[in-house]
């Protein structure tokens, strides 16, 4: 291609990039957070309930269309999550694409959590908190030793254990998302913990967009100054949902969302 042709192609690519960025960041209207009493689950919709003690983990299988509610019962825990596609666990959560595709490291109601295959694993259909972490990840043996002077139960060990119990290994543990972990960056890129943004009974509802194996670890986030002894239970509620409406807040959020959901729907067409 000629130099002029290259320049024209680059200019067209830049224009498209700037348009997508503006749509993703300047024009995007996200829904308000869910009210604490805003999304009650009826008893007959509940499939499974599990309270996970501090330091422990649980694995939940979700069918497409079901949701998982994760509740920070007393507001002092964080819930780190990994997810793999049930039929092909080589497809799994990808935090980098989740951030990059949505032009934001801040998860909240209306966002999607993507796989490494350009498809949607989970939709954030309800969220009271809007304070979650995609960058720093869960606690490890090292992080607990440094913070508490001893190695305590930690998310890294929990994920190794959870993965092993479904036939996966260390190679299958990608970066995780941690809910109820109010982490932002300051102007210089340093991480900041906003403890005041945590409340008892904060919850997220995550709708499965494919059949999933989900592992959840209940440990203090490594930036949380709370001692591990102060960590409290989280509750997991797997529940049924009506099919998404045509104007579903997640499925219609952006051109990127429209494409990601279309690619996901093809799996089930």
């Amino acid at each position: 291609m000629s130099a002029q042709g290259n320049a024209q192609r680059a200019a067209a690519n830049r224009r498209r990039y700037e348009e997508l960025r503006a749509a993703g960041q300047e024009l995007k209207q996200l829904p308000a957070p869910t009210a604490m009493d805003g999304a009650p689950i009826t008893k007959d919709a509940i499939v499974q309930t599990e309270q996970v003690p501090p330091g422990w983990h649980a694995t939940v299988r979700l069918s497409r269309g079901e949701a998982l509610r994760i509740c920070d019962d007393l507001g002092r825990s964080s819930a780190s999550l990994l997810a793999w596609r049930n039929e092909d666990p080589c497809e799994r959560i990808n935090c980098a694409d989740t951030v990059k595709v949505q032009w934001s490291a801040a998860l909240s109601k209306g966002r999607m959590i993507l796989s490494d295959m350009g498809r949607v694993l989970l939709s954030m259909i309800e969220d009271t908190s809007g304070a979650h972490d995609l960058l720093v990840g869960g606690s490890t043996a090292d992080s607990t030793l440094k913070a508490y002077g001893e190695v305590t139960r930690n998310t890294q060990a929990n994920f190794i254990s959870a993965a092993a119990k479904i036939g996966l290994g260390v190679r299958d543990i990608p970066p995780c998302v941690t809910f109820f972990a109010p982490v932002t960056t300051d102007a210089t890129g340093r991480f900041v913990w906003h403890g005041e943004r945590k409340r008892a009974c904060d919850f997220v509802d995550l709708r499965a967009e494919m059949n999933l194996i989900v592992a959840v670890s209940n440990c203090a986030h490594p930036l949380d100054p709370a001692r591990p002894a102060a960590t409290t239970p989280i509750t997991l509620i797997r529940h049924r949902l009506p099919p998404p409406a045509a104007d579903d807040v997640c499925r219609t959020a952006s051109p990127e969302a429209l494409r990601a959901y279309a690619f996901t729907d093809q799996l089930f067409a």
Partner: protein
Amino acid sequence: MSPTDQDDLVYAFDIPAEQPWSRILKKGQTLRIIDSEGEQAVDALIYVAGDTAERYSAQDTLRVQGSAYLELGTRLISNCGRVMAQITADTCGRHDTSAGCCSCESNAVRFGEATRYLHACRENFILELSRHGLTKRDIVSNLNFFMNVPIEPSGNFTVLDGPSSPGNYVDVTAEMDVLFVISNCPQVNNPCNGFDPTPIRVEIRQTPAA
């Protein structure tokens, strides 16, 4: 470059635009990645040689240093909490480890179906990893040298124009024997490489450059 540097040089290679590369880096050796023509993004994966289940972890690295960006002095941490390597020289000043690598699938979501059948880093990584008995499962998190991805306090996350000038380099010194895998990012859809992939040069020295 001083004559001492040249004496120390044990390997040099120009990686063409859009191509992958890999090499074992011995403990104490330094890999210099040179952005030959400027404004190029370099994606990299690092594994412990001999035990590839232990590999570079972006989240562990960011947690340990408390900052969202990589810079001079950053220790590159494995998923087992060990220091695999350290950034020992840097004439660019901006490197990312949060934005992952491009793939045909994520490009199709970000930029539209028309971009699906373009070169992408994950294709490069899969091909290069296959030479070492590794697969797509082993692509977990990567480094993006010379990539400027500011994260605002609001969470806004943008890949900006490639910040490196011709000849800018970054040195990575191995703290253990590691397999270093590079995709010289073929991305033509965002400004990390000026929409125009160009060659890079890699050089390996026995010791950290002065």
